[in-house]
Structure formats: C-alpha cells, structure tokens
C-alpha cells in the first residue's frame, strides 16, 4: 500500500510525470538560487518565456546554461502576449527554440489584472491545436470558457486561483469545484498561490496539478519554500484521494462514551 501511495502518476497528452508541481523561472535573485529551488521543488516540468535576444548586449548568459534539460521538461510560454496572433507566433518560435510542441498559452486581456482575453485564447488554442501543439491554456475560472477550451482541443485547462503574482491564494473555491466536476482533461491551477496551504487547498479541491512561480521565487528563502510547495502539493493530493470526513456543525467525540471514570 505504501508503494501504491508513492506511485501517483500524472499524465498530460503523451507525457507522464510523477510530480504534480510545475514551476517557473522568473524573478529569482540569481540562477544558482533558481537551480536549487527547482531541485527542492521536485518539479519535472519548468516553464520558460520566449523573448527577443538582446542584440546590443549579449553578455548575459542564456537561461538554458542553467537548466538541465535532460532532467526537466521545458514548457515554453507565451507570457506577455496580448493577441491570438502574437501568442501563436511566440508559440511557433518557442517550438523551434525548445524542440517540443508543448506550450503554456497565455493571451493577456488586461494589463492591471493580467486576466486572460478568453476570446483570443480560444482562437489561439484552436490554431495551435490544428498545428499539432499540445496546448495548456492559462484561463479565468469560468467553467464555460474551460469547456470551450477543451472543445478546442486543449490538453489541459489551467484556471487561475487568483491574479498572477498576487499571492492571494485560492479565491474561487466554488468555481474550481465546478470545473473539476466536468473537466475531461487535466486541471492545473495556474497563478494565485502565495504559500503552501494554498497549493494544498488547490490539490484538495481535486486539481491534477499546480503551476507557480512568484510564490517560490519571491519568498525570502525560495529553496525552502520550493520544498514546502512540493510537500503541500503531495499532501493535498493525498488528502483529496483519501476522501475527507464530512463537515458537521457540532462536535462528535473520538473517545468511547462508556466506562468514563466517576460516572
């Protein structure tokens, strides 16, 4: 049984992972801290952004100098794209740079909230699926949009728990429950996690995985937080799979009521 519990595989499209935590590569104080945090997180999939090479100053080392691509699966993202066209273009470039046809699809609709533009997101999903991409779209927590993304061929759906980088935790428990009910593809909560209990809650709600960046990279000790997140995702998953007790309004004693001393 112990062995059975330790084997909890997670499949998206044609790939199987043993970690349900996906992490980012932004905002770290140094590449060394990032590498240690990735290691501590136990993650097997890492998301990276696609950007223009700085032609006038190429002194900076490449991100890929620090990531062991034999150990981690790289998930290019289209972060910062505001239209379906930009996102599709970026995804195509990411495919050539990374030699994988997977993409974390982001089409942002509003600068301040960084909420997705779902209309453009669905359009970009359709286009990229047609081109053979494995598309993981970052979406709002709207169950109807999630269904449309599935219909468009998304390999997973990735609703937010709160705005990107906000650290507010899971603000939409009910919507995530509803999405969990009908989702036929893996459900990954992407964005909003601030601390370990947030990640555990997402998993307890039945998410198949959690994606985060800022909660780890922005912590005072990113390496320790990465380990906390690994444990939280695992704990939340186990708790979800274990079937929690029902919530009751009143107490229910754990000890026998017979044989009390003095009665």
């Amino acid at each position: 049984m112990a062995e059975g519990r330790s084997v909890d595989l997670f499949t998206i499209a044609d790939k199987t992972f043993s970690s349900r935590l996906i992490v980012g590569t932004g905002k770290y104080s140094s590449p060394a801290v990032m590498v240690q945090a990735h290691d501590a997180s136990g993650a097997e999939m890492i998301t990276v952004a696609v950007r223009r090479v700085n032609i006038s100053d190429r002194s900076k080392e490449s991100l890929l100098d620090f990531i062991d691509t034999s150990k981690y699966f790289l998930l290019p993202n289209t972060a910062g794209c505001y239209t379906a066209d930009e996102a599709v273009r970026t995804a195509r470039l990411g495919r050539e740079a990374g030699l994988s046809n997977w993409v974390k699809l982001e089409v942002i609709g509003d600068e301040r909230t960084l909420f997705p533009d779902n209309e453009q997101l669905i359009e970009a999903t359709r286009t990229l699926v047609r081109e053979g991409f494995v598309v993981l779209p970052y979406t709002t927590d709207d169950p109807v949009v999630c269904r449309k993304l599935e219909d468009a061929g998304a390999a997973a759906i990735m609703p937010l728990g709160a705005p990107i980088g906000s650290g507010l935790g899971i603000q939409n428990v009910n919507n995530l429950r509803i999405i969990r009910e009908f989702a036929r593809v893996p459900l990954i909560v992407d964005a909003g996690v601030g601390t370990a209990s947030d990640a555990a809650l997402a998993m307890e709600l039945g998410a198949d995985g959690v994606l985060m960046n800022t909660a780890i990279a922005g912590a005072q000790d990113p390496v320790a937080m990465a380990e906390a997140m690994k444990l939280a995702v695992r704990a939340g998953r186990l708790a979800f799979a274990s079937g929690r007790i029902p919530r009751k309004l009143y107490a229910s004693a754990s000890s026998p009521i017979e044989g009390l001393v003095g009665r």
Partner: protein
Amino acid sequence: MQITLNGDRYEVAGPLTVTELLAQLEIDARRVAVEHNLTVLKRDAFGATIVHEGDEVEIVNFVGGGSWMANG
C-alpha cells in the same frame, strides 16, 4: 544592406544566410529560434535561408518567466 532585426534597423553586409548572420552576431544557433519575414525557420533551414535588404528577422531565446509579471 539594411534589415530589421528584432524590431530595430540593422546594418549588415549581405545578402547572407541566417547561419552567417548568427555567426556575425556571435549567437549560438542551438540556443535560439529565428523568424524570417514572419515565417518561423526550422533549425536545419538556417544555412539555406538568405536574408536580403529590407527583410525582417526576429531572433528569440528562452528567458526566465512563469507568467507575465515574472519577467522583471
């Protein structure tokens, strides 16, 4: 000749292949993706793709990022 490279005007002796352009820029071709006049190139096409006067070239690589805010 003048081309548009990553959105900016750029002077380079040419025409030349994408492989030659990357070499002149001292960019490791294995670490980047290249778009030529809005078409993303397969890596094995770098040597056969000629960049002409007025062409648009985008050279991208991977940088740190989780989501949009994370690229500071």
